């Protein structure tokens, strides 16, 4: 089964957000991450897989262990996704303002 990996769906899950917070300060192995949750290890693995597939997390081989660390570039992209929406409204409001500055009421 092919599941579309959407960054926004990825961060909509509270466990996955908690994982991102955990690895924000230091790289951790899957085991170390799982130790912070009461959920079963395979469930945590699934979350890690999703976060890795949408590139919010990156894997790094260190000896026999795989460490997970945060992909700052991708996180920045997510943080800024609202900016185009804000720009759209800013453009509209700028237009409104300039139109109304030149507005001549009809009934005067």
């Amino acid at each position: 089964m092919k599941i579309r990996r959407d960054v926004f769906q990825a961060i909509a899950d509270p466990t996955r957000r908690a994982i991102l917070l955990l690895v924000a300060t230091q790289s951790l192995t899957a085991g170390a991450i799982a130790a912070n949750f009461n959920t079963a290890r395979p469930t945590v693995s699934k979350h890690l897989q999703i976060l890795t597939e949408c590139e919010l997390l990156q894997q790094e081989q260190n000896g026999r262990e795989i460490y997970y660390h945060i992909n700052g570039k991708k996180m920045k992209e997510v943080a800024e996704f609202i900016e185009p929406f804000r720009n759209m409204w800013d453009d509209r409001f700028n237009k409104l303002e300039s139109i109304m500055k030149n507005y001549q009421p009809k009934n005067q």
Partner: protein
Amino acid sequence: MERKTKVHAEDGKQEIFITREFDLPIELLFTAYVQPEIVEQWMGTKVLKLESQKQGSYRFETTDPKGNKHGFSGVIHDLVPNQKITRTFEMENTPYGVQLEIYEFEALTDSTSKLTMHVIYESIHNRNEILKLPFAQGIDMAHNRIQDILSNLK
């Protein structure tokens, strides 16, 4: 340029707030929302109907560069001149559902005013999808630009 328009979208909520201060007296700001020919200009849409009154309704239509028509419509639940508009808004034939919009108009000085738009969506998911729309369009536009550049190179 100064960031005049602010968007407040708290994580995990199905609402957003958009605020903006205008160098306009409140009467002029309000007029921009109730006069069809002015709405057409700043929203960049055709206004097919706009009954600016309590229990009135409205319908807008835009045509995209490919010639497809998109309808936007809703009903006006309440309208208090120079103070408040409460209305629904829906992008027709889309999966985004209906949203409740509460516009509060506030005079700051004789020549300045403030608008607060409170928008409540059917779900957190719908909210996030709608917030992403201009983001997705931006990516599309970037792709189109790249295609234009590439085709000009041929």
